[in-house]
């Protein structure tokens, strides 16, 4: 390869942007779904009921000891079997990401809930709240507010992680670039472009997170 030809980027911009859009979609599903499931699992991790505590703990520890790629493959095989019919790359990737990221979100949620003083909980109980209402109106809202920086950091990680959906052939951003590369043989330009786009998004996000953290710290 002699000279660089950056023209390859604008020429295939639409295709690449479609990939980036898929990446965003997957990240959104993974973050929202992962957080919701993560809140449930995080609460279960703090449960005093053993049949709730042990499965949740096992789930978190197993997920956190597996590479994401393997989890993606897992659901790539399992989802069609459970559904009884092929469900497509995007769907099985979504399930894999929600389940995998839930384990990480759960640990953040657990730490967040633990950071709320037990006085709050006792006060709620003595005012006549039951467990559900205490969690729903007192603990979770405060805990979530405290967790925001860690949750945002994790969201950036999830966004980066979505690139692994590449392995099951999902046409996300990286896969789109590699498809274009196979045709145009412009590896340097394409992967540099992908890297720069990811960098700009993640850098901006983490800088905003840091600023938020500093603001919180002073408040």
């Amino acid at each position: 390869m002699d000279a660089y030809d950056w023209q390859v980027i604008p020429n295939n911009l639409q295709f690449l942007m479609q990939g980036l859009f898929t990446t965003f979609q997957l990240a959104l599903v993974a973050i929202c779904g992962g957080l919701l499931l993560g809140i449930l699992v995080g609460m279960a991790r703090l449960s005093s009921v053993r049949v709730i505590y042990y499965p949740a703990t096992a789930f978190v520890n197993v997920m956190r000891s597996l590479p994401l790629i393997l989890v993606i493959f897992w659901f790539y095989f399992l989802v069609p079997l459970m559904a009884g019919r092929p469900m497509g790359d995007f769907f099985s990737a979504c399930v894999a990401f929600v389940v995998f990221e839930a384990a990480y979100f759960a640990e953040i949620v657990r730490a967040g809930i633990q950071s709320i003083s037990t006085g709050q909980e006792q006060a709620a109980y003595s005012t006549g709240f039951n467990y559900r209402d205490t969690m729903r109106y007192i603990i979770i809202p405060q805990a979530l507010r405290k967790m925001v920086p860690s949750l945002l950091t994790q969201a950036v990680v999830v966004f980066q992680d979505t690139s692994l959906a590449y392995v099951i052939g999902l046409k996300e951003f990286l896969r789109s670039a590699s498809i274009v590369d196979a045709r145009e043989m412009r590896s340097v330009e394409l992967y540099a472009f992908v890297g720069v786009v990811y960098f700009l998004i993640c850098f901006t996000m983490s800088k905003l997170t840091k600023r938020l953290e500093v603001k919180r710290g002073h408040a």
Partner: protein
Amino acid sequence: MLSYNFNWSIIWTEPYGQWMLEGIWVTIRLGLICWFIALALGIIIGTFRVTPFRPLRVFGAAYTEIFRDIPLLVQLFFWYFAAPSILPKAIEMWLYRGLPNSEFWIVVVGLSVYTSSRIAEHIRAGMQSISQDQYHAALSTGFTHFQTYRFIIIPYAVRIMMPPLTAECLTVFKNTALAMTVGVLETTFMSQQIEAYTFQGIEATTAASLVYMGITLSVVLIMGFVERRLAVPGLITRTGGR
């Protein structure tokens, strides 16, 4: 059409069992090599970030930001596909053509650099968490700058850094699975190859999962041992379950 016949013996029949063992060996080798290179690089870069010399600080900050904010897979692809044509000719010849199983060493470069940027952050945080008073107290007792670091700051910082470094060590081993995308024959690659040959995807993936869980458990045990040996009573209070 989508019913599934389990055949667990596939994991240890020839040649698949052999493949799995080879994959495990590559995973362990890759993880260990990357871990030690990343640790060395990370300590250097992390130290750059707390030096009083500004250019080094800026370099350290740029290094960590760049390698942390780009997904590892993109970085690996860059090293694998793009780097050969921008690196100097001599390095390219040596790394990409000269070496046997060059993919392995390309992943070593990519994964080490990526991990080192994350380790550097932990090192920096650990160093900065030591109160300035310790430093001033040491200097006023007559310690030199070097001695202060050698006897006061580093011994404390190392202990504070141990838990995050344990997590990072686990991450390295998990991240070696990404090497399959550039054709390194490690555990995940082998499990998927067994799937491709036998269609027994669940068994093969289960086997790979057990391997990673075993590696994770070993790392947690080893690092826990080191942590306990180094622990200063009362310095780090462990919180949370375990």
